[in-house]
């Protein structure tokens, strides 16, 4: 017989979980069109914000979905020994203008895992690399433990 227990994670548990991971899936939408991509991110537990570098090729579709501070959802999940854990951050994805960087945000991006630039044929100077911040309006996490007797 299989039983499972599901627990809503505390805020500190969600923070710790997001702080331990560096990759997730970012979901955006425009009209009726969805768009979801794997991303790397950095998480600041003090401000509960996620920091991302998003890379676009000149002819890519990502730019259209990133226009005008879109609503976004970042999902991070893992599985370990029958424990399934996930966290979801929902909020506005704001572009960070490099002209507005501070020592604190530079340090934060220093802690943020870099994108896999190698997957693009173009070198970094020819890529559109933009900085984003997701300050979640909702930040939740769930842990499900499955036990087989």
């Amino acid at each position, binding site marked *: 017989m299989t039983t499972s227990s599901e627990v809503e994670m505390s805020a500190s548990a969600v923070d710790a979980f997001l702080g331990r991971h560096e990759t997730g899936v970012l979901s955006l939408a425009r009209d009726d069109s969805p768009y979801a991509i794997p991303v790397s991110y950095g998480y600041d537990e003090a401000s509960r914000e996620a920091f991302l570098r998003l890379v676009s090729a000149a002819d890519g579709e990502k730019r259209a979905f990133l226009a005008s501070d879109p609503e976004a959802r970042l999902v991070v999940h893992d599985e370990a020994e029958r424990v399934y854990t996930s966290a979801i951050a929902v909020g506005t994805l704001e572009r960070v203008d*490099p002209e507005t*960087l501070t020592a604190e945000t530079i*340090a934060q991006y*220093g802690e943020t895992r870099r994108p896999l630039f190698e997957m693009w044929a173009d070198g970094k100077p020819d890529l559109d690399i933009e900085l984003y911040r997701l300050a979640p309006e909702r930040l939740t996490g769930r842990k499900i433990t499955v036990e087989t007797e």
Partner: protein
Amino acid sequence: MTTPTHTVVCPECHRSFEVDAGMRETLLKAGCAVCGAPIVDADLTVE
């Protein structure tokens, strides 16, 4: 940002922006905010 003291040009992504003394110190430790490449003193020019 307080009065900018340097301009940094990343050797890998070629983005440039102005930084103050505090930001300069952080850049040298953290790397380019845009692409993550290491930044050294030679990448910074005094304003």
